[in-house]
């Protein structure tokens, strides 16, 4: 399936040509539909392992979207980091801690209220900022930047933020070791 997308992008060079790409639009619609359904199932399902697996579908859909846009590096990073690492960590944590999940009624209602509030806030803030910054600007179709360009940018222009993030991650790592460790 992914191979199909890749050859699609290469064969037609959709990002530099002006023609309307039917196949790309069809796949955008399909992926968007699957993502929305999976996202709805994810927040409504009672089973926490199922929720994590629905999240896999949503994230894979996002990777597919990036491929349709020709941003293969971002797509592969999405797969590697989110599906290959974070979801695996979720599943691992769930399976190590609890087998089955009973829900307490009162706690559940409280949590639902908070979740709805948070969801509405996120939608309002992000859609507001998107509409405000792009308004009626058209998508700028240009050839995607190559992996080499991304590497040059990260290790040239953004070297200090990049290093700062790695120090932050190291601090988090050491912190978790200190918290988890029992001193003898």
């Amino acid at each position, binding site marked *: 399936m992914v191979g199909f997308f*890749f050859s699609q992008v290469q064969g037609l060079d959709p990002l530099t040509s002006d023609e309307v790409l039917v196949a790309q639009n069809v796949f955008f619609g399909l992926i968007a539909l699957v993502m929305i359904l999976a996202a709805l199932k994810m927040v409504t399902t009672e089973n926490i392992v199922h929720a994590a697996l629905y999240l896999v579908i949503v994230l894979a859909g996002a990777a597919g979207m990036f491929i349709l846009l020709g941003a293969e590096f971002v797509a592969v990073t999405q*797969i590697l980091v989110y599906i*290959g*690492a974070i979801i695996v960590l979720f599943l691992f944590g769930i399976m190590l801690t609890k087998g089955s999940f009973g829900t307490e009624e009162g706690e559940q209602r409280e949590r639902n209220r908070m979740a709805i509030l948070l969801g509405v806030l996120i939608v309002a803030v992000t859609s507001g900022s998107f509409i405000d910054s792009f308004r009626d600007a058209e998508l700028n179709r240009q050839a995607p930047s190559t992996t080499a360009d991304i590497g040059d940018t990260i290790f040239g222009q953004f070297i200090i933020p990049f290093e700062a993030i790695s120090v932050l991650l190291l601090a988090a790592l050491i912190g978790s070791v200190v918290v988890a460790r029992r001193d003898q």
Partner: protein
Amino acid sequence: MTVFNLAIELAYWQQTVIRSILGLVAVLLPAGTLVYLYLFKMMSFMQSRLGPMEAGPYGSLQLLAEVGKFLQKEDLFPRAADRVVFKAAPFVVLASTFLLVLVLPAGPDAWFINIDTGVFLALAVSSISVIGILMAGWGSASKYSLIGGLRAAGQLVAYELPLVLAVMGVVIQAGTLNVQEIVLAQANGEIFGWGGIGNPFIITQFLGFMIFLVAIQAELTQPPFDMPVAESEIVTGYLTEYTGMRFLLFFIGEFATAGIFSALAATFFLGGWYIPGLDPTSNLFNLIGPLVLVGKMLLVSFLIFWFRFTYPRFREDQLQQLAWKVLVPLSLVNIVATGVLKVVF
């Protein structure tokens, strides 16, 4: 864009059909070859026995007999199993295998996808199988399966690091993440000005090659890294509740992945589809390239299966220690050394 340099231009849908069929072949053929050649015959010879001899000459039809046997079996589900997750798990593992085969080039024009991020994609999709294994372990609703699934996930995550880091040396030396260009970098390379055999990276990246071999052995959960399916403790780990067709899918996935990982090792370290003495751009390689790649793949997988039949199983803590305390530091040293030498020379 053509798969083989034919005189006719193929339409997009024709190319897609050809690619799909060849992808299927590229997954199933190595799996069958490895099972018959190594698992049936070589293991038997190493243990002074003949192996399967009844079905066909020298037991060559044994594979068909095995597949027939699995297909006849009843499709059983544990009563408490989470049916959807249980059913989907083998397909997730197989999906990872099918995505992995996409990045392998088998000739100058014979490839499935030729993208800038090939190595990165290979390493990313190989991690999807962890989710399938966790699904199998959890969905079976059996404690053996769950323990096996958790062990497998822990092992796969641990050995993914040395796997990725070992390839980094090759990427630094070739200066690209594109698998096709890594092959060409080896074909056009020179050893101190002598370009007779190109520059297969196994010479300069021997440490990386060894780390890669150990890491793929562990990624395949093969002995000596078969703690997740240790039969004396947890039956067959996450495979315990699977029968018939679904077990067969896991089995095909395991051996197909063994073949594809071997082919990746051959591509990164042994020069891929290239053989010395010929022009790497010549059209000939579109025909003999796949054969060369399969030959090199059989060589690497011979090593994998040799270790598999020779060494006893690691204990769980030894297995994790090997990954974190030996392989990861070694591969980091390898990356630093490669980087320094790359700048110096």
